[in-house]
């Protein structure tokens, strides 16, 4: 894929946190980034708290953490991220408050490409993976906002499903049925594809969901763009740590992703390590 990216200023810059609030099971972290460019949906940033990064449980976090940009209004300097507390890094970032310093590098990686000619974009997100779909909705929206971009969003439960409020139009499924459709988001995707498969799928979420989406796209001959995750140390191609297997071998998803064409993968399941 050719690069779909906005380049980042070189180096790590300190920005100011504007707000940090809970959204159901998630945290939305907002900051001002006056010196950075506006990112492309699907790009990500490497974040570090300005203070106490190196402390905490087991004295991690030490390395920066990768987060998809969730929203970056074209006018202004705001960047929003959506965080799920899964360890010391996300916990520490979630503790930040207004005016705290946040260090960031980005925007990084390859974002989403526009849909192929004549295809309707169909967004499929799971859990915190809905983050890049929010900015994608913004960027795909027609100038007059007439054609809504549909999004199918899956969550564990109602508490997590509150995250769906961050996107404009969405249909929600929960694993436990406590909100919306009771079942997997791919149930809804199958229904949509049955109805009209002249779509381009944009998906981000946990590996099993992405793999189900990939398999469906392959089966139906529908193009799909998947935003992948992997443990990262650097985010700019320096460490070769973030590779995923593709049909053309291991690729670093921080530079040749995180968005990859579904057709390039044999599987979207993260290998080993139990991520």
């Amino acid at each position, binding site marked *: 894929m050719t690069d779909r990216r906005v380049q980042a200023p*070189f180096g790590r810059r300190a920005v100011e946190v504007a707000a940090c609030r809970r959204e159901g099971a998630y945290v939305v972290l907002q900051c001002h980034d006056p010196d950075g460019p506006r990112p492309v949906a699907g790009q990500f940033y490497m974040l570090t708290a300005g203070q106490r990064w190196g402390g905490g449980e087991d*004295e*991690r976090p*030490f390395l920066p953490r990768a987060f998809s940009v969730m929203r970056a209004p074209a006018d202004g300097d705001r960047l929003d991220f959506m965080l799920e507390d899964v360890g010391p890094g996300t916990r520490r970032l979630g503790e930040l408050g207004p005016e705290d310093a946040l260090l960031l*590098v980005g925007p990084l990686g390859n974002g989403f490409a526009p849909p192929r000619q004549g295809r309707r974009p169909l967004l499929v997100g799971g859990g915190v993976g809905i983050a890049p779909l929010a900015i994608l909705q913004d960027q795909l929206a027609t100038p007059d906002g007439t054609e809504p971009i549909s999004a199918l969003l899956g969550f564990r439960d109602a508490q997590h499903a509150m995250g769906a409020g961050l996107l404009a139009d969405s249909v929600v499924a929960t694993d436990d049925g406590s909100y919306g459709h009771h079942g997997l988001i791919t149930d809804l995707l199958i229904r949509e594809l049955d109805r009209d498969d002249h779509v381009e799928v944009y998906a981000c979420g946990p590996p099993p969901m992405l793999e189900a989406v990939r398999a469906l796209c392959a089966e139906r001959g529908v193009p799909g763009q998947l935003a992948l995750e992997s443990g990262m*140390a650097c985010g*700019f191609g*320096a460490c*070769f740590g973030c590779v995923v297997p593709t049909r053309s071998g291991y690729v670093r998803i921080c530079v040749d992703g995180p968005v990859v064409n579904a057709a390039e993968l044999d599987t979207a399941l*993260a290998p080993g390590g139990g991520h």
Partner: protein
Amino acid sequence: MSVDFCGIELAHPVINASGTFDAIAAERAFGQGLLSNFPFAAFVSKTVTLNARQGNPPPRLWELAGGLINSIGLPNKGLQGYLEHDLPQLARLPVPLIVNVMGFSRDEVAALVEAFEARDEVAALELNVSCPNVETGLLIGADPDELAGLMARVRPLTSKPLIVKLTPNASDVPAVARAAQDGGADAVSLINTLRGMALHPRSGDPWLGGVTGGVSGPAVRAVALAQVHALASVLRIPIIGMGGVQSGHQAADLIRAGATLVGVGTESFRDPAAGLRISAELAESSVSTGL
């Protein structure tokens, strides 16, 4: 702060550690901003082997308190791929290029050295000897005789500066370093990573796809300082010191301990421009300490 290193004029003493900065990928990410503020006084490429390598299966990274274990496994395009795709791009960098090479036999290393000897874009070669000689089964960088044999084979093949990158996982690093010097090395660099391991927090199986990996970052800094210090009194040739450097003060420590140049590795992962900051801090501390 400009330094003469084996006849190469460098703007300051801070370079990257091999395998911790991919200038081509970084240019994709940062564009012109990288080139106009290139963070290192010379660029050291990731290890190049004769044949292309895929590298180890993921996961390849495990974070430590103040450090990192990596089991990357030396993925690279191989000599031909490097010459075709990478070298032309790296030749455009605003700093001298040092190519790091590794071979699993003396012939492999010789082939690599000969190939780069022919290329004017290459200012110097670094031999990564943290690997076994598949013919003898001995770890080249841990055995003075093994290294002496390798030097005897490859030193005559190039007139470019030859740097030997030592492994810290050796009983007697000074003996290995002396073998490098006696074999005609122009410099040594150290430390490479320490062998380390982590288990999956839940399953208890090895976390890394490569089972074990190499520890780098602040956690190895004290070991790096001790090894550089141990060589300073036994070597005539210059030393490139590296291991856990995060600040100009720590770079100055390595220089005080005997290093001529300082390599920055893991810290670049935290801040791509770390090399700039460290060399600026070093320049400042050098003024104040009269280093």
